[in-house]
């Protein structure tokens, strides 16, 4: 019998597998495919203080083993979430974590404060790295001072587990992670999407309405794994790894690199049942390798 429980500060995951914000809706969209109780948690889609329509269509471009998106944080705002969506999802038998975005510090704080009051939301994931909206947070997420400001402000207002989601579009992600840690983050999750671009050679136009978008999918896994490894060496708080994870083997690699938990994102689009399969696959790996406790794998890379 393998122990898969992961204890983070104020947040206990029954296993290390979560789903990434913006790729799993509010969980309900996947209920036909996945028993949500098999997951360590779900991070529901990016929520902002006010309603946002997001960016115009087209918002997506397929790339080799990946995709670009410029959705732009479309959501109905935190009050709508609290009144309409929260009641439907609050009793899921898994951790429901809300991804919080904003265009200025006050909005981040206001949204986080409202979610702090929701009994069944044990954590938020602070999105300081959305590449698709001006002041979509990426402005904050690419400098140490920027991330310190927003994290410290939210930390003062939010009293549960605070995950800070980091942008990979930086020279030294370990510095950014340490800044988040010093500002009071309980954990960091990485990577958000890599900024990319697609062009239609025949029409000579950008494929995306916003010209650039965020790259995700299997293609980014090597970069994500490297950054998780660099960050895990640099900070004492737990690291949540994501970026192209498409199988239990991928997930194990992130744990070995130092991630205490992982998130599955774009792979949900290719196989809507993948998240639960990964959770089961991790157990099979542990049984095959004689690992009694998944925590043994965390940072277990042999150099």
């Amino acid at each position, binding site marked *: 019998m393998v122990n898969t429980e992961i204890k983070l500060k104020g947040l206990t995951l029954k296993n290390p597998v979560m789903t990434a914000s*913006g*790729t*799993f*809706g509010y969980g309900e*969209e*996947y209920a*036909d*495919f996945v028993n949500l109780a098999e997951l360590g948690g779900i991070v529901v*889609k990016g929520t902002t203080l006010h309603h946002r*329509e*997001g960016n*115009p*269509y*087209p*918002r*997506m471009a*397929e*790339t*080799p*083993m*990946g*995709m670009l*998106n410029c*959705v732009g944080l*479309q959501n109905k705002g935190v009050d709508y979430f609290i009144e309409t969506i929260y009641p439907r999802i609050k009793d899921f038998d898994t951790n429901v974590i809300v991804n919080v975005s904003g265009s200025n510090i006050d909005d981040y704080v206001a949204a986080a404060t409202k979610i702090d009051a929701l009994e069944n939301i044990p954590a938020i994931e602070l999105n300081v790295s959305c590449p698709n909206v001006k002041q979509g947070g990426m402005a904050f997420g690419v400098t140490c001072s920027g991330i310190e400001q927003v994290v410290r402000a939210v930390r003062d207002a939010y009293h549960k587990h605070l995950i800070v989601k980091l942008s990979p579009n930086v020279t030294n992600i370990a510095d950014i992670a340490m800044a988040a840690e010093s500002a009071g983050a309980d954990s960091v999750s990485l990577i958000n999407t890599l900024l990319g671009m697609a062009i239609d050679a025949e029409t000579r136009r950008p494929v995306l309405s916003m010209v650039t978008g965020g790259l995700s*999918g*299997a293609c980014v896994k090597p970069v994500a794994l490297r950054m998780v490894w660099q960050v895990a060496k640099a900070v004492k708080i737990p690291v949540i790894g994501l970026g192209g994870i498409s199988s239990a083997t991928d997930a194990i690699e992130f744990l070995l690199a130092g991630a205490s938990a992982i998130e599955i994102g*774009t792979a*949900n*689009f*290719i*196989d*809507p*049942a993948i998240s639960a399969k990964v959770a089961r696959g991790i157990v099979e790996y542990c049984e095959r390798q004689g690992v009694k406790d998944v925590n043994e794998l965390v940072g277990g890379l042999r150099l």
Partner: protein
Amino acid sequence: MKKISDFKIIEKQTWLRAALLRLQCEERLPEIRGGQFVQVRIDGGQHTYLRRPISIHDVDFQNNTIDLLIQQKHEGTKILCSLPVGAMVNLVFPLGNGFTMPEQNDEILLVGGGIGIAPLLYFAKTIKSNCGNKVSFLLGGRSADDLMLLERFREVGDVFLTTNDGSLGEQGFVTQHSLWNTKKINKIYACGPMPMMKAVTKVAKDKDIWCEVSLENQMACGIGACLCCVENTTEGNLCVCKEGPVFNINRLLW
């Protein structure tokens, strides 16, 4: 109830730019409404990381088969059309809302352009079995070889045709067909290329006829999670994969 299932290609028919695949599943099929679609996993392409949405052309619940009528456009659909009988494909299905079932006394016109004819057959069959209405198809293509499987459509209703080159039916676009002046119509269901659907929408609005269209915005997840395939509507950006693909024209900003 949406499912992920493996299907085997048990029959195949091909044309110049299209193929008909009959896919059989070992499990019983869930309820499927006309106008719904499947998301097909395509292996073997370097640019087919995501699934491909394909409308459901026909269903046989006795034999657990789904027919897909596929037009070869890009790498994904080309690979799909090249798969041999016996090959396995994985589907996520049924997806989307489908067309609204009409009333018993409605005078129904199903308008299809190019590969947009595909979903109309199964929807017409469900109309027949549900309310027994007689339906008419108005099918348009660039030329005769875009208009496939007409015998299948004729089994279910009257078929009117247009081609741009006049090689079959009346020459011109579907909106130029003579039936618009002669035929009594109070419900239109349309699927096809955007210009054709916009033209049909204009006709419907001019004649004040109730009309639903099926959109084909590019999708990633197909189940309303990624918000990539949005159409800007009277209610704001809505996912074509989940709130659609079928929309009443009154909800669209066309």
